[in-house]
């Protein structure tokens, strides 16, 4: 079944894990750097070139390639039909890969040390911008293929509810396509012509605003595939069922509706954007937290069904009975636990007032390693522990090391992220080569110790993960019998309200909210735009 699609999925995972392996290695170096141990002179590159590699490779390449591969895998199985055009999906893959190579060339030759947010007027080599644009174009091609595949399915299955997995995939790519409009506009109308010298100046504030129009829903693009696994697979792995299928759909839809018009919460400290708009985005940000709270209830209730089916009794006895010794389950359950702390921190970031304390401090990377660095990355590791054997027919190379990897990530991340949050509250800046900073406050030294030690444990975990996946993919014993875990809804498939299947309605609501949240802001910025800034290469 789907052998041809699976080949494409394997290629996506290969690129994803290469990106994680290379980009991830810089993470521990950055953690040690905060402690005052700098390995950059030895490597012969600057801290910022390394940080650009880290951000681009792990936050953009690892996530995007894993997600595209995983969601192709999920779509064909969930709809039980092949892609309408496998060729188009391969083209999408190659466009993305060419894009990564082009951007990678610019970064590796030190022509693009602009970090993964590439705020102008720092100017990278044009191939950096063009490359990242190609990555986005590739995802558009893929998503178009998935949408058409879904329409074909819909045509042949009138009146049937979309399978929940495919439902999650659709929401993910609709959200992504809407979000990437922002960064595409930034690239096509500003960065690319400006970096090629066709435009004399660039409006830095407009560029930031377009970037964050994209930048916040980007995090939901990372998170939604994780929710697909948590809702539709993990309950099965826990020996249970999905507590409520309709509520899962509701959560997906609310995430779609609210996730775009919230990006100004990344620009609270920016001049040039009115207070009212910042306040509106605060309210919408709190709204987009709501579906994640729904998810917490639904997923935990599903796990409870599993724990009780495994003989757990009492208020918390079921927790103990969950399969904590299974790497794939443990990875995702611990990812959830870390994500809970990430969520709490997220409320603080999103708070109009408290943001002033944490903005651009070490707190922020402390936060985002709980979310994209753990909820997402550790969940994907857990998925890989069954997906790679399924795709290659080889058994998981080393179960014990996989388990060790999972727990090391959890403890390492707990220490690391604690240190970073703490240092951040004490005012330590993010994105800074702290080892050579002219200011190093004594009060930062204990938090930095947590950061450095946690980062070192994470390095070990990262190595275990990459080695295990590589061994499983290429060398482990054949004969794996693995199936995609598929959770059944508890109490049979209860029909969700018909409106949940009306995509045009949800698209319209989403579009209206985007226009309200961003229309006047962008209009005003474009109306008042000036000749702008010339390019700078200051690295």
């Amino acid at each position, binding site marked *: 079944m789907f052998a041809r699609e699976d080949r494409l999925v394997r290629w996506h995972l290969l690129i994803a894990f290469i990106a994680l392996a290379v980009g991830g290695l810089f993470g521990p170096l950055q953690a040690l750097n905060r402690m005052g141990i700098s390995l950059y002179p030895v490597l012969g590159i600057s801290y910022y070139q390394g940080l650009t590699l880290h951000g681009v490779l792990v936050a953009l390449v690892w996530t995007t390639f894993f997600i595209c591969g995983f969601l192709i895998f999920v779509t064909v199985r969930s709809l039980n039909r092949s892609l309408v055009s496998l060729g188009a999906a391969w083209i999408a893959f190659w466009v993305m890969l060419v894009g990564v190579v082009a951007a990678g060339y610019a970064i590796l030759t030190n022509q693009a040390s602009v970090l993964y947010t590439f705020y102008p007027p720092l100017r990278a080599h044009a191939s950096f911008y063009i490359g990242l644009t190609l990555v986005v174009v590739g995802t558009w091609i893929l998503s178009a293929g998935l949408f058409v595949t879904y329409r074909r399915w819909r045509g042949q299955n009138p009146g049937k509810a979309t399978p929940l997995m495919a439902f999650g995939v659709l929401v993910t790519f609709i959200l992504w396509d809407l979000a990437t409009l922002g960064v595409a506009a930034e690239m096509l109308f500003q960065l690319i012509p400006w970096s090629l010298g066709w435009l004399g100046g660039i409006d830095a504030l407009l560029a930031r605003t377009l970037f964050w129009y994209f930048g916040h829903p980007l995090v939901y693009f990372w998170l939604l595939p994780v929710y697909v696994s948590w809702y539709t697979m993990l309950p099965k792995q826990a020996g249970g069922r999905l507590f409520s299928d309709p509520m899962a759909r509701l959560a997906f839809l609310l995430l779609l509706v609210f996730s775009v018009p919230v990006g100004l919460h990344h620009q609270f400290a920016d001049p040039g954007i009115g207070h009212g708009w910042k306040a509106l985005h605060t309210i919408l940000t709190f709204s987009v937290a709501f579906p994640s709270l729904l998810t917490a209830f639904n997923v935990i209730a599903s796990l409870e069904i599993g724990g009780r089916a495994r003989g757990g009794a009492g208020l918390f006895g079921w927790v103990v009975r969950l399969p904590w010794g299974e790497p794939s389950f443990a990875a995702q359950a611990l990812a959830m636990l870390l994500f809970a702390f990430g969520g709490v921190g997220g409320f603080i970031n999103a708070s109009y007032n408290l943001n002033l304390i944490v903005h*651009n401090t070490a707190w922020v990377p402390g936060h985002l390693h709980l979310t994209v660095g753990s909820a997402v990355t550790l969940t994907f590791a857990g998925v890989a522990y069954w997906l790679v054997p399924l795709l290659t027919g080889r058994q998981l190379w080393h179960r014990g090391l996989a388990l060790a990897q999972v727990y090391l990530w959890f403890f390492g991340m707990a220490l690391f992220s604690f240190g970073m949050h703490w240092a951040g509250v004490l005012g330590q800046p993010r994105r800074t080569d702290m080892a050579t900073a002219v200011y190093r406050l004594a009060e930062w030294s204990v938090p930095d110790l947590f950061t450095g030690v946690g980062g070192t444990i994470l390095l070990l975990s990262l190595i275990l993960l990459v080695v295990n996946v590589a061994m499983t993919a290429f060398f482990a014993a054949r004969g794996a019998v693995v199936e995609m875990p598929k959770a059944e809804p508890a109490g049979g498939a209860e029909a969700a309200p018909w409106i949940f299947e009306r995509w045009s309605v949800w698209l319209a609501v989403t579009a209206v909210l985007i226009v309200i949240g961003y229309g006047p802001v962008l209009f005003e910025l474009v109306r008042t735009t000036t000749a702008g800034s010339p390019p700078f290469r200051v690295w």
Partner: protein
Amino acid sequence: MRVDLYEKVWIALSLLMLLGFLGAISVSVFVHGISLPGAEQRIDPKTVVNEPPFATPGIRETGPGEYEVYLLSMVWSFVPNEIRVPAGARVTFHATSRDVTHGFTIHGTNLNLMLIPGLVATGTATFNKPGEYLFICHEYCGLAHQTMAGKVIVEEKS
């Protein structure tokens, strides 16, 4: 659609919590007067250094205990990078950048601004305790970003 009773309770509590947070933020804004940078006139980043007020950055007294600082940022320094005020001073900063985007935060205060070329960011801090307050650039601005800092020196009232 059937929703489980416990889930209804959870939903109610979630919504209450979110409303509570928004209420708390409103209190901080309307009662305690926490404010963020807001809408601003655009300026030309290429000529900002040639025209007042940023042609002569620095501090000026605007009233008893009230000061205004025009702060210019550039790779990789602030002008002025040392600011002296007496204890109790209430200082309003107007800051911008003449090149790339920088950041500005003063340790031990709530002041936190992005300095984006083409815009002037404004924020206020009150310095009650004498001592030295470190300020730094907190947005990546190139190779020596980690050296971009200065201080506010708050002197005992004489």
